């Protein structure tokens, strides 16, 4: 990101706001998990709690990447590199789904064994 000193001064204000937002959402993450009143779904850890926790984490991570790492205004080459990264990252994540859907086990497992 190419910036003049004047532009940088403006950015510093944005960094402060993002910093406070990140801290606020850290409090919210803990509150959602620990305060019974804010507990999502049934008592204890549920799929709802996991979804909310990961959504907040993704929001915070996006702020860090876009503002602190200047991805909101980068050159196209970096976006191209990251496009590949995102594609393969999600590929890795979904690999674990084979634990739930295992065609080899389904074909070869004899019922009742």
């Amino acid at each position, binding site marked *: 990101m*190419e*910036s003049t*000193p004047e532009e*940088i*001064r403006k*950015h*510093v204000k944005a*960094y*402060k706001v*993002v*910093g406070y937002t*990140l*801290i606020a959402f*850290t409090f919210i*993450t*803990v509150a959602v*998990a*620990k305060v019974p009143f804010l507990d999502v779904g*049934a*008592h*204890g*850890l549920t799929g709802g*709690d*996991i979804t909310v*926790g*990961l959504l*907040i*984490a993704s929001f*915070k*991570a996006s702020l*860090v*990447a876009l503002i*602190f*790492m200047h991805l909101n205004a980068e*050159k196209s*080459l*970096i976006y191209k*590199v*990251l496009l*590949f*990264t995102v594609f*393969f*990252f999600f590929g*890795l*994540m979904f*690999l*674990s789904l084979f*634990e*739930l859907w295992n065609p080899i086990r389904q074909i070869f497992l004899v019922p009742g064994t």
Partner: protein
Amino acid sequence: MEIPYTVTARPDTGLWNAKIGIWLFLASEVMLFGGLFSGYVFLRLGVTEGIDNPWPTRQLIVWPGFVNTIVLIASSVFVVFAWAELKMRNFARYQFWMRLVVLCALVFLGLKSYEYYGKFTHHGMKFEDDSVVEGVLQQDRIEFTATELSLSPGKGGLEFLKYLKDGTAPVFKTADGEEVRLTSSWIKNLRKSSGGVDAPAAVVLKPAAPLEFSFNPKKVQAYTGEELTFRDATVFKGALKDDKIYFEVHDIDLRMVEDDAGAMVFSYLGDARKDAYLEHRDAELKKAEEDGRAADPYDTDLMHIHPESHGAAHGETHGNETGGEGAADGHGYPVIEVERDHKKFLSNHGPAYNTYYAIYFTLTGLHGLHVLIGALVLTYFLFFQKKLYQKNPEHLANRVEVGGLFWHFVDLVWIFLFPIMYLM
């Protein structure tokens, strides 16, 4: 030779070299951590209810992780401030913010070390019937009084001497009445004279006075009341003094026990604590019914209680030799003396304890290593780059931007690690 495009952008990409370099490196880092996160998901989804142990959820103390999140976020803000000050050519203020970044890194690593220390000094023991106690291991040794030892010169070494309670080098007598002190040169000579490492003949040695040993159980191959075989095949004759495991119980977990009222752990903890446990369990089941939810054995509250806060009051119970109620120690926690053959598994809460701790230490350890390396790089920029600033300030600003991008990435990984490890 001057390396081109360290400050100005290349005309074809519009980027200076290190900027492309760091983003390619961060892409590889995403895949590294992505693989481990994927491994975590795989392990967690792979838990089979009723067969595997319940996946530990919300087991870590939250405040150190929470404070560390705030610290890393603050450090991310400070590093971007430091970069901005350099862009505005204000070196003194750059140094101020960068000092704060390094301080944050030290706080983070300090807190992480404190957490790790807690895990390595906290233990869990599973009984033969799958009941689990958690707390502090006080003693896990095999104590043996030896009156004779049979040393196999082919295999045997002198490692067993480390387990002598009295550190002084003992004097032995051979069958011929020769007096010997066990040293490595003595063993070497013995091997030479008796035919090398395959020599079958054992040398019988008798100590001048009975020797008291306190063995690490992992080093013992087998033992009875009168005989003990060390792992290098040295055989001791004498008397077994104590082989019990002394364990301070902070917590009991019976979620994997079919008949929890008859769990093995209660033969040590006593009836008062059993009654307290059953009362707690029934109350939790009733609460679950009132809330309209099924009794879930994976629910931490259901069958996971702290014995010091239920039933027998602090210091009221006293242990006995035959395995009655556990004696309370100075902290009010009962200390039980467990028969070694009742133990199925015993470990501290290190990576070996279960798959959760294995992936926890792998992920947080790798992340901690990144914090350490990032802090070293930024410290270098803080203290050793003034000359570069005077020569070409934009070059230093670019270096700090690259270091900062790495630092933000470290923060970004922790943003996911914190809820996944501490809150889910």
